């Protein structure tokens, strides 16, 4: 059951999007988010939605995969839509019922907000779908490198991310095992009120923490034995390289942003 988490998953492929430099992809994602919020009217937003659709088609990611990651945000989308529908009462009243007034503006605003949220999630998910975790941390490390000047431990942060990602499946596995072992001793994890359920977690969380600390300890020694001394003097096997295609992709997303701004001004 714990193994069904899909957000942030990598979807292996060989498309243009997979091959782009992860740094460029991060920049593009950022620009895309800016454009999405800059778009103040429907046409601008339609451009945003259009980019998402094209990008997914390019990356050849199945709709089913996307739907899985959108599922958790459906309640959020519904709530914001409903709130917008009911509380935006100015404008052309479509119908009134008791204290509720639904206006055309309300409907259009609700649609705009929903499309925006969905585009935002779909667009940013695309980054993790098309980029391996390791490339992602490399990109973060390099993009944030200038911040080393102000003593931000950029390398350490990236290393922590890598290790976290490496150990998530291990710890999920371990949680399953510990849960089974405690169930075999008659631990009841499924029934009872909230207090009882939280209490029932103690026999699972304590062994999990103990084990995580033991692992951390052993890993630290193993890393030292492999000559790890922090980021200083460290080289990399795979270097990130910007290619011509990355430049074009960057120009494309900038053009989109410019387009959205123009639409805002002129339409």
């Amino acid at each position, binding site marked *: 059951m714990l193994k069904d988490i899909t957000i942030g998953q990598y979807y292996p492929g060989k498309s243009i999007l997979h091959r782009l430099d992860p740094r460029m992809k991060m920049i593009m994602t950022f620009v895309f988010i800016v454009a999405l919020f800059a778009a103040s009217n429907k046409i601008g937003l339609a451009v945003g939605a259009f980019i998402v659709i094209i990008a997914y088609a390019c990356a050849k990611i199945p709709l089913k995969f996307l739907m899985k990651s959108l599922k958790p945000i459906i309640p959020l989308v519904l709530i914001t839509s409903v709130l917008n529908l009911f509380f935006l009462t100015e404008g052309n009243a479509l119908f009134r019922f008791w204290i509720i007034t639904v206006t055309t503006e309300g409907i259009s605003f609700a649609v705009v907000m929903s499309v925006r949220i969905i585009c935002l999630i779909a667009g940013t998910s695309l980054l993790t779908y098309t980029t*391996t*975790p*390791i490339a992602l941390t490399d990109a973060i490390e390099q993009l944030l490198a200038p911040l080393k000047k102000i003593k931000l431990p950029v390398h350490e942060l990236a290393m922590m991310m*890598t*290790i976290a*990602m*490496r150990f998530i*499946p*291990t710890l999920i596995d371990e949680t399953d095992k510990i849960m089974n072992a405690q169930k075999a001793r008659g631990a009841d994890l499924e029934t009872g009120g909230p207090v009882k359920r939280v209490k029932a977690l103690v026999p699972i969380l304590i062994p999990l923490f103990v084990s995580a600390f*033991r*692992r951390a300890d*052993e*890993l630290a*020694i*193993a*890393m*030292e*034995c*492999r*000559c*790890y*001394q922090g980021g200083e*003097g*460290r*080289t*990399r*096997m*795979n*270097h990130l390289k910007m290619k011509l295609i990355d430049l074009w992709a960057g120009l494309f997303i900038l053009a989109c942003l410019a387009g959205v701004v123009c639409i805002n001004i002129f339409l």
Partner: protein
Amino acid sequence: MQESAILKTEDLKFRYNRGEEPADAPWKFVLDGISIEIERGSFVAVLGHNGSGKSTLAKHFNAILLPESGKVYVEDIDTADESRLFDIRRAVGMVFQNPDNQLVATVIEEDVAFAPENMGIESKEIRQRVDDALKSVGMYEYREQSPAQLSGGQKQRVAIAGIIAMRPDCIVMDEPTSMLDPRGRREVLGTIETLRGRYGITVVLITHYMNEAAMADRLLVMNEGKIILDGKPLEVFQNIDLIKSIGLDVPQSVELIHKLNREGLNLRTDILSADDCADAIAEYFLKNRPASGCKGAAYMRVLK
């Protein structure tokens, strides 16, 4: 110092609890005066029960632990010399018990590249070392996968590749098979043989399995922080009673021969493998069969 010694300890003593010790019960030495030399290119197994000090000794070989008294030298470098730590770590690679807790990266080849990257090696050379190391442990096909999908034996082989990529002179393995199933154990032991053939690398294998210890050129048996037996596995295993008295086993072949000889047979004792053991018994039958024995023909096959 002996020319070819790659690792050397001189009256090494070590305790975990230091500081105030109660007058009536002084802290026990985990390592109690160990003096050994390990020859370059040799395969040495260290056998002992849990708590005999064998893992503590292993941790002295690349300065994870430093002696309380006495000396440890790695290629003539005193491990207490902090300025040479990097050279020591690069010369002696360590493989640990739990395969899960020594892999750092989410992609296998990135993990193998970890040590060379730390050493500041140029990327082309890293690529070459990584590919070479993965091929030598038979994990090259898996290079782009995540360690999470591997079996215990495969993970341990990746961990070994990660050490091989450092091109160390010596590899110390601290119970590398104790968490593995028989298949994983065979994989790891096979890998050790391959590495010895391919790189002529010095191997120190810490273990409590006799069959693994039997593979080595030289066997050290530890008990209570001391080395109590040191020699070729064949010779060491003759001390059946001593080995059993410290909670270890001997190979069943050796035990059988020993027990039969106690019954008054005089079988030769220079055997380890099941086949050698069967040969020794068959020879005995052949030699001692009554002149008129009709089964002589069958025994003859043994001596070919």
